[in-house]
């Protein structure tokens, strides 16, 4: 584990990545894994739009179309957006609070591998030809009626991936509570750390309902349970409640880190402190809290009655207030600043109008009687894509450019970055703006085709053209990433020039123990403060350089997750194939044995000697 750069063989490098517990490497793994699934979900989206570009199209069959919409939604939410955000949280958040790693490096690795194997499990359904087809919401009556193993893949795959998410959330919470550097009080934490904190707390409360719901579904489909079978006294509406008690907070789990990323960007590229920092923090916490109080607005047409609908309508509208506070604080951060339009800033600028539009259409749907018209039409498709693409995906793309140097030590090409932005941004509005009207004109969502003569043809064609513009943008980004990685021009600590938080005061990418000495934090935007006071390094150490305790890598997280992956197939084929039950038992045993090995092994980690740290410092020319 020497820090001196040395050539390693392919096998050794692979082993290093499979066993790593370093938050920066796990961040990259999440980023690459999520990126892969993002492209997969994007291809599914293109097929959907191609099917709908003309009326009565038979490019894909009705059944395959339902597979595509289900997998597009599930993949984008669970396997693309969330893991990529986890990638940034992992790579950046510990640096922002001046920590050497997350609180539980082993669990961090386990969380990643469970996500990875869960996602793999879900997508292997394509090879079996039995793909989830009940929508990403998998409402119970349809998910129970769905033939083949499609929905089984959904239930088990998400169960495994969801377990990983829960672990990651708990890990981030403990990290932020316990591992902040001296002086890093809660009210000095960068906004991205704050939003990570609140999103993690939301994961802690939102994912257990999903776990329970998926177990119910698994039992109903594979083990003769009757939780949702109304003929046996079950109830399908219960699934809808359970799903949305998870599902609505999930939206905020995605959007809050996006808010955090944009808060960093506005501040850095306006060269100005975030306007109204305390109210930004308060708004974040309030949104997190209210996010749990509004799930039934997804169910206005279920027939809950006027009282329930009225309460949830007003609660939903209330969320607009803290969100509005955030928008105006960002505007006022720019006001009076010194704005430079880099690629990340371009995304942040595009985000404001896009997200505001997504937000206001959300309020419109919050008006319950109006939602009776808008629910399950293309209006809602337009709305949630404005929020998730206009908010979360723009944030992910912005952060990809912003943090690329910090994660990989080299910078994405700015010109190509702007080309990506314009293709993506124009394509995005072209795809989704017109869909609001499709909804007004009576087009339901999730339809695999539509008849001619309903006045929907032109709008659908425009929408499809827009989708392909977005695809071009993503292709340019992938090209940019590949070319940049091949050139691999190394950059300094703060390639953007106006970094304000701790991660910009250390190497790009940071050395594996992050900080030679734990930094002392003297205020919000600590690096900016140090630099303004003439400390060019941006850091003041809180302690002398001394030995650092580090965890050992381990292959056990991968093995544990792999056992669950195997057990999933066993559960699915338990009644059909003779090898089903043995495989289920074998997979679970595999996992339990791996867990036992972890418990019985006495792994206390290792120390990096002071001399080695000093040697590293000397090599870096005394820089952090």
């Amino acid at each position, binding site marked *: 584990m020497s820090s001196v750069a040395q050539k390693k063989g392919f096998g050794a490098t692979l082993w290093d990545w499979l066993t790593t517990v370093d938050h920066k490497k796990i961040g990259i793994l999440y980023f690459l894994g999520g990126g892969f699934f993002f492209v997969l979900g994007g291809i599914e989206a293109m097929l959907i739009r191609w099917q709908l570009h003309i009326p009565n199209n038979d490019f894909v069959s009705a059944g395959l179309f339902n597979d595509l919409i289900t997998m597009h939604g599930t993949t984008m939410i669970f396997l693309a957006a969330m893991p990529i955000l986890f990638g940034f949280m992992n790579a950046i958040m510990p640096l922002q609070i001046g920590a050497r790693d997350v609180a539980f490096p082993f669990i961090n690795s386990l969380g990643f591998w469970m996500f990875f194997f869960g996602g793999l499990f879900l997508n292997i359904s394509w090879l079996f030809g039995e793909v989830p087809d009940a929508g990403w919401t998998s409402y119970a009556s349809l998910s129970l009626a769905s033939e083949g193993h499609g929905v089984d893949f959904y239930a088990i795959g998400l169960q495994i991936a969801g377990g990983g998410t829960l672990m990651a959330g708990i890990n981030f919470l403990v990290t932020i509570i316990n591992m902040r550097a001296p002086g890093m009080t809660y009210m000095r934490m960068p906004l991205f750390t704050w939003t990570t904190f609140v999103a993690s707390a939301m994961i802690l409360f939102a994912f257990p309902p999903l776990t329970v719901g998926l177990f119910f579904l698994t039992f109903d489909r594979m083990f003769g349970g009757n939780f949702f079978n109304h003929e046996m006294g079950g109830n399908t509406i219960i699934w809808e409640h359970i799903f949305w008690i998870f599902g609505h907070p999930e939206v905020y789990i995605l959007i809050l880190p996006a808010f955090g990323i944009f808060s960093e960007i506005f501040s850095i590229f306006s060269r100005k402190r975030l306007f109204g920092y305390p109210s930004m923090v308060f708004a974040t916490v309030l949104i997190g809290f209210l996010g749990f109080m509004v799930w039934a607005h997804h169910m206005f047409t279920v027939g809950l009655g006027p009282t329930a609908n009225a309460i949830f309508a007003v609660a939903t509208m209330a969320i607009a207030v803290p969100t509005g506070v955030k928008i105006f604080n960002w505007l006022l951060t720019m006001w009076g600043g010194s704005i430079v339009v880099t690629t990340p800033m371009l995304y942040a600028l595009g985000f404001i109008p896009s997200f505001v539009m997504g937000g206001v259409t959300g309020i*419109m749907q919050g008006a319950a009687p109006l939602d009776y018209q808008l629910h399950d039409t293309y209006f809602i498709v337009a709305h949630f894509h404005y929020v998730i693409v206009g908010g979360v995906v723009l944030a992910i793309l912005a952060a990809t450019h912003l943090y690329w140097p910090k994660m990989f030590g080299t910078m994405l090409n700015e010109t190509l970055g702007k080309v990506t932005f314009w293709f993506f941004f124009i394509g995005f509005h072209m795809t989704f703006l017109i869909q609001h009207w499709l909804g007004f004109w009576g087009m339901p969502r999730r339809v695999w085709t539509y008849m001619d003569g309903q006045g929907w043809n032109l709008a659908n064609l425009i929408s499809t053209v827009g989708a392909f513009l977005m695809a071009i943008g993503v292709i340019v980004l992938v090209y940019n990433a590949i070319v940049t990685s091949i050139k691999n021009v190394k950059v300094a600590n703060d390639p953007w020039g106006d970094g304000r938080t701790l991660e910009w005061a250390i190497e790009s990418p940071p050395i594996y123990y992050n900080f030679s000495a734990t930094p002392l934090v003297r205020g919000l935007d600590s690096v900016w403060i140090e630099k303004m006071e003439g400390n060019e390094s941006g850091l003041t150490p809180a302690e002398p350089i001394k030995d650092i305790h580090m965890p050992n890598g381990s292959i056990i997280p991968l093995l544990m997750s792999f056992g669950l992956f195997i057990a999933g197939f066993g559960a699915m084929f338990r009644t059909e194939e003779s090898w089903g039950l043995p495989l289920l038992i074998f997979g679970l045993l595999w996992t339990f044995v791996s867990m036992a090995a972890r418990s019985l092994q006495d792994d206390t980690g290792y120390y990096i000697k002071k001399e080695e740290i000093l040697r590293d410092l000397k090599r870096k020319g005394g820089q952090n």
Partner: protein
Amino acid sequence: MMKGLKKWRLFSLLAVLTVFLAGCGQEELSTLLPAGQVGRDQFNLLLLSSGIMLLVIIVVVAIFLVALVRFRRSKLGEDHIPEQVEGSHKLELVWTIIPILLILLLAVPTVYYTYKLGDVSAMGAVDEDGNAENLVVDVTAKLYWWEFEYPDLGIVTAQELVVPMDEKVYFNLIAADVKHSFWIPAVGGKLDTNVENVNKFYLVFEKDSKDLKDGVFYGKCAELCGPSHALMDFKVKTMPRAEFDRWVTAMQASADNQVVANPEGQALFQQSCIGCHAVSGVGESGAQGPNLATFGDRNRVAGFMDHTKEDLIEWIKYPQEYKPGNKMPDFDGKLSDKELDAIAEYLMGLSVE
């Protein structure tokens, strides 16, 4: 230069106008051209909320653009260090209180309409003689068709809902297999048909469907229900009360007054089809397949195909191909072309109007 700019302006104005005029959709299925009180209430709420939201968008975009133009580093110089403002309580109070007021403005009518549209208390009302005062229709959604029973009138039909104009029509909604959602966009919002409980609501139909392009309003299933969800359309015929009463009388007599356009077709139908499809409008819901008593009066075959004999024969031969996952088996090979032709002719003749 100026001239070019002016032309460009005129062009964009025209473009905006075109979009605006085209923006209302088609009368038979657009929520923007409401054809009844419920749809109009919802449309009013749409106008109010869009107005408020447009105001918000304009304010945000205006501040955004001014800030972006005024505070560019290229203007201020590379070395300019802006003042590090912490915040402003006054401003923050302003943009907390104004949104609260705007939301109150929207919340009050929202709550009012939620209760108004949810009021079905008059549903079971009876007059002195014990007759129902209001028309009630029991809707059952099935894979992938709609059954409409009129419990107080003793009649049942399918795929094409017939209702009187200018009065509240109450609906009991349920699904027979998986969840669907009942939606007539031009008339009012949707309500789900759950599998385990009956949902109730009302709609008011104020436009005569005779004046529409196809003579019917379009109805849709709005909840994903399987492969043929997209094809689970139905149609709605609205008519003045007197005409509706005549239709009801004709339906009630349809068992005895059946028009037989092709006796051979009738015989074949009773051999091959009667197990699932009734041809009398008298009865209750719960049939295997759609009631065909009014088949000749309908607008579509299977809810979405052209109403021609050729399409009907195609449908009977290959229903699984046209509507994958529905419950009707393919009759291709089971009936000869001649037999199919006779059945189709018989069905096209079934009429009560």
